[in-house]
């Protein structure tokens, strides 16, 4: 199945499949599953339409996704109203939702590009090291700087 252009194989567990997105690791994927009420052992083929829609809506822009309403939980003495009666909406305070602040895919790449560009613009050591394709964080250069020479660029994360 494809969500926003990323292929999620049908047999993958959902909380692992979501890590296919750039910017979502295991912890974020688990929180995302909990947000949409997907159990741990669900596979992509078990998802229903509502869950797919909720995931797609969140992943297309996390910052603009609708906030999740708090779900009040019944204490042991709670007696539910009988069927057929209208359910009273209980307003409960929602805890802070840190998932809306994450950035994924192109937004995340843009942010990282801008950070490096800013470092270059202010003429800092970090910016100079990116420009020279050398290690940035104080690693050895007498030997073993091959990855930095290959990957460190000012236009990295394009």
């Amino acid at each position, binding site marked *: 199945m494809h969500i926003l252009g990323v292929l999620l194989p*049908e047999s993958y567990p959902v909380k692992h499949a979501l890590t296919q997105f750039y910017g979502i690791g295991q912890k974020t994927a*688990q*929180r995302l*599953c*909990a*947000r*949409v*009420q*997907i*159990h*741990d*052992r*669900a596979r992509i*083929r*078990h998802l229903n339409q509502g869950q797919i829609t909720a995931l797609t809506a969140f992943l297309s822009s996390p910052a603009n996704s609708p906030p*999740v309403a*708090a*779900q*009040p*939980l*019944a*204490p*042991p003495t*709670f007696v*539910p*109203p009988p*069927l*057929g009666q209208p*359910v009273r*909406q*209980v307003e409960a305070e*929602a*805890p802070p*939702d840190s998932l809306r602040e994450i950035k994924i895919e192109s937004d995340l790449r843009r942010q990282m590009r801008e950070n490096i560009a800013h470092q270059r613009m202010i003429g800092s050591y970090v910016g100079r090291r990116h420009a020279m394709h050398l290690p940035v964080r104080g690693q050895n250069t007498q030997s073993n700087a091959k990855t930095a020479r290959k990957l460190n660029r000012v236009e990295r994360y394009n």
Partner: protein
Amino acid sequence: MLLVTALRTGRAVHPTTGTLATPAGAVAQTRGYAAPAAKNAKKVSSKFRPNAGKRRDSKRPGRDPGLFRPMSVNNLTHPVFESEQRVALQLPVFRPEAITPTAASKALAFPQNESNLLKAYGLPTNILVDYLLLSKPCSVVREVTVSLLDQLDNAARSSSKDNRVVLTGKPGCGKSYLMVQAVQYCSQKGWLSLYIPRAISLVNSSTSYVYDPRTQTYGQPAYAQQLLKRFVDVNGSLIRHLTLRSSYPFDERPVNSGEPLLNLINVGLEYQHQASTALSALFDELAKQTKYPVLLAIDDLQALYCRSQYRDPFFKSIKSYHLTLPRTLLEFVSGKRVFARGAVLGALSSQNTTFRTPLELIEALGLEPSGPSNPYVPRESEIVEYAKGLKNLPVPEKLTVDEAASIFELWQQAKALHLPQGDEPFLTKYTEAGGNAREFVQKGLLQTVAM
């Protein structure tokens, strides 16, 4: 590698002692109650196989292997082909009339008619593995079996508030087997039975969950629907005579009082999103009716007293009494709700270390705590409430010599062991196990079949 391990991991088992006939009537875990199998993935033919694209010419006759065609078994009449015939176990059938004090330490086979109770409800994993090796689901009647079944007979007349029993004991002493025997006995005696063999599967985030604003709990629709189906399969003939006492106005199909109970269950079977509600309503109806006593049997009971592995949308762990079905079960176990006639039977299990028996339950049952139990250790008041009034039935940790001898003869009869018949090998294994049933069977007897 051990036979048991081979079966668990599903690897091919190479029989070493002659040819084994297909076990007749083996309990098979079919997918009938599981989620529907996924649609077959489209098979893409490999480009690397030499004959990949070619279609087989249907007009060409099939190749005749001639000399290499296998002979049918009937043609193998020479005595050299005769091996030890493996016949199905010949055992008396488990019937309520057969359970008497004199029948203690006899092996009885569970009946396998159309409404096979064990096949419908499933079994705990350890018992299932045993039955994969034996050709018939069976068990040995013990003294504690007879005493428990006597207690259940007396419970048939009173409400379940006075008959809430929890089987406890050392790992491997036979709690799960005892529970299976109790469920089978009550079902044959005309009770309505509801057996949950693995309560851990309710709380380990293995089925879907949905928040219900009406009950302010999380329902598990897929599990509820399966449980309704299993209940109908086992108790269908009895509940045909029951009618509803209240009406349930479901959106899709309202059900009114006076209608047969089956109508309520069918709503849950047809509409999965209503299955949790239908199951809760079923519990209400079973609690009120007085025609049949009800047995609610839960193995792995301690899992219901632990925190579940589900998470709410803010990633907080959901407590087990905030899930609809575990909450209902806890209410019946604790006596907050009662069956007018019947009993509640639970069994603790120490196999899964993620769901250990919590301190509140240990103290309620009067067991010895494994960790600290001073007043500074936090105890959740809700869990203490849910554990009140439970009666502890300790299962003896040692098998008597007669019971162990019956088990030994059972396995020998099944031709599953590489042990000679006789007292000496039996007593050796019995002493090594110290009388513990699981150690005797798995580490004593089945170790002789190392692969």
